């Protein structure tokens, strides 16, 4: 009896659409990724309903973590020489004894979280290795501490530029730290801040959601 022949089917699957989609997704993620600069400290910011985006303008930023350590960032957008001026000025007024190379290093350094006395040690390390040094934070008290002087010097170096002040705090940071940071700014007569938060949905049925939907329907952008 002749056996029934089962036709052999190819096991080959056409992967082309699959690959197409995969690379589409890959392209999307490559485009969407924005590498954030490595911070010396991990900070998880609170949420808020504010929709204002961070603008790429000149700004000073103060970061404080849950242990109360305070870090100071000077971020000029175009003119990096401003940052160099800050450290040069500081070097002479505070007698830090920094070399030119160390001052150049300061320009590349993302955040400062050491007292003035520890600045030389931090800047003697190359930028890549600074992460290994545990920074104790800028000394701060109810009158602002060293942070007050940092802000004062940075503001004077930025004179003539519009400058923004960003505060970035950790969820579990205690209120006194926040208050001391505010005091340091207040002593410099700076009273307007932007606090970095993560976007959160407006709860339905509240006044703000009514205002937002009204703004939307009238075609104007929310304040």
């Amino acid at each position, binding site marked *: 009896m002749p056996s029934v022949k089962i036709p052999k089917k190819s096991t080959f699957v056409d992967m082309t659409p699959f690959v197409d989609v995969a*690379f589409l997704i890959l392209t999307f993620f*490559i485009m*969407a990724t924005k*590498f954030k600069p490595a911070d010396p400290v991990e900070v998880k910011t609170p949420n808020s309903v504010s929709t204002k985006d961070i603008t790429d303008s000149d700004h000073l930023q103060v970061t404080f973590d849950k242990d109360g350590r305070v870090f100071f960032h000077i971020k000029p957008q175009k003119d990096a020489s401003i940052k160099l001026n800050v450290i040069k000025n500081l070097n002479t007024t505070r007698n830090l004894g920094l070399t030119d190379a160390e001052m150049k290093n300061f320009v590349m350094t993302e955040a400062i979280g050491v007292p003035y006395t520890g600045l030389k040690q931090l800047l003697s390390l190359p930028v890549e290795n600074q992460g290994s040094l545990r920074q104790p934070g800028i000394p701060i008290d109810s009158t602002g501490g060293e942070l007050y002087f940092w802000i004062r010097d940075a503001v004077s170096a930025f004179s003539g530029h519009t400058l923004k002040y960003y505060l970035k705090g950790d969820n579990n940071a205690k209120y006194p730290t926040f208050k001391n940071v505010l005091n340091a700014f207040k002593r410099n*007569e700076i*009273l*307007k801040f*932007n606090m*970095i938060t993560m976007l959160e949905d407006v709860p339905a049925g509240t006044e703000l959601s009514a205002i937002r939907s009204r703004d939307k329907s009238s075609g104007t952008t929310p*304040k």
Partner: protein
Amino acid sequence: MASIEEGGGESHKKGPGVKKAKKLSTRVDMTPMVDLGFLLITFFIFTTTMSSPTTMDLFMPKDTDKDEEQNKAKESGALTLLLGKNDVIYYYEGQLKEDASNFLTSSFGKIRQVIIDKKKSVIETHVHDEGCKKIQEKARVGDAKTGVRPDPNWQKACYDRDLVVVIKPDEEATYKNTIDILDEMAINDVKRYAMVDLFPIEKELIKKTQGGN
């Protein structure tokens, strides 16, 4: 792409004696490419932070030595929120009573209703006067210089002007608590609020309430 096949070889008959050229398969093994592709996708998924941070405005008042200026808030419209340890909120309306009978405890989930109720009662007891008309006029016109647009609800602009929320975070309150309560001000459209320090008596009351629970 790789699976494009050269088909139709059978349909075209060549003459007898003509030798068929050996056909090479154009199929390419794509497995390594796919592997690499997915490896990269995984990498980028893990490194991407999708939600971009936003900023929240905060305007602090200048420290004034004059007491009269600080106490401008009308007692009837004042609501004081004290932020304590473990996300607890204590609050009282108006002035704190001697026997602390209006010193109440709440939480971040419930405080919104307290603020809404307070606002409602302030709006109900609102008195229309000259100062109120000025505020209305300001809201109706808007201010092109500062980017404040004319308010379509300008008539209501001054109804809640007596509402002042005083926020007093204590030493144990976290930064998140502070931001959350400021956010609550934005959510409920409270126009006047201030962040100040606690009075010693309030600190004691918080301690007492914490011990009692």
